[in-house]
């Protein structure tokens, strides 16, 4: 599997650390309530199809990136830097 790091270019999956759904970018306000926080910290969709998730280019440039890919076809549809993806 290869991922297109927006900085380094396409790289082997082994260079990346996987974090999970890009939902992690949307941290609720401290007073958003239990439900919002439980959703943020614990609940994730498990889509058959297009998904956006966070990867860390730990073996490369150290950028956190958001990768859009298809869990059914394994197609990688794109990637962007997490710092601008919110």
């Amino acid at each position: 599997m290869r991922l297109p790091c927006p900085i380094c270019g396409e790289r082997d999956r082994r260079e990346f650390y996987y974090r999970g759904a890009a939902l992690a970018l949307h941290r609720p306000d401290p007073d958003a309530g239990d439900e919002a926080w439980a959703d943020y910290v614990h609940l994730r969709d498990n889509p058959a199809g297009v998904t956006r998730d966070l990867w860390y280019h730990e073996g490369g440039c150290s950028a956190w990136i958001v990768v859009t890919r298809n869990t059914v076809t394994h197609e990688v549809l794109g990637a962007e830097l997490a710092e601008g993806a919110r």
Partner: protein
Amino acid sequence: MTELLAKTACDGLLSVTAGPFTLSEEPVAPLTSLMPYKGRDKALSAALEAAHGVKLPGVNRSTSKAGISVLWFGRGQFLLVGAGPDGSLAEHAAVVDQSDAWARVRLEGAGADQVLARLLPVDLRAASFKRGHTLRSPLGHMMASVTRTGVNAFSIAVFRSMAATLVHDLKTAMEGVAARG
């Protein structure tokens, strides 16, 4: 003792050869990590040029002049090699001494890219990775900085504490490739 004796990162480990390949330790040089603050890349580049004669390189590139070079070193990070940082740089960037943090070696010999192909999961073909090009990628299990310094020469850096493993891994790869003849 009246003086603390300095040791290099690869003290006692290098150089080694195998077939056409030679692995040696890069000469000790000041290494400084430069991390520009928000929106200060251009200002840093100008300050660098004024003080050291080199500009900031682009991604996966390096710049050099008269023994001083600047390597792209990751997201928002550069490595100034060969000169202590001028005081003016700190205005635009975090300036951090890393002279002792890296074990730096030089791999030379016809087919050196084939030695690295045993360890690095990246495309090092001469057409796409030319002299002066640099990248960050894991060498074996070690986060490395790799720069092509010649047709058959590469400069490689990993964390200092891993010098022995770096030499071991490169030597094994050198011997494997050399033994194929």
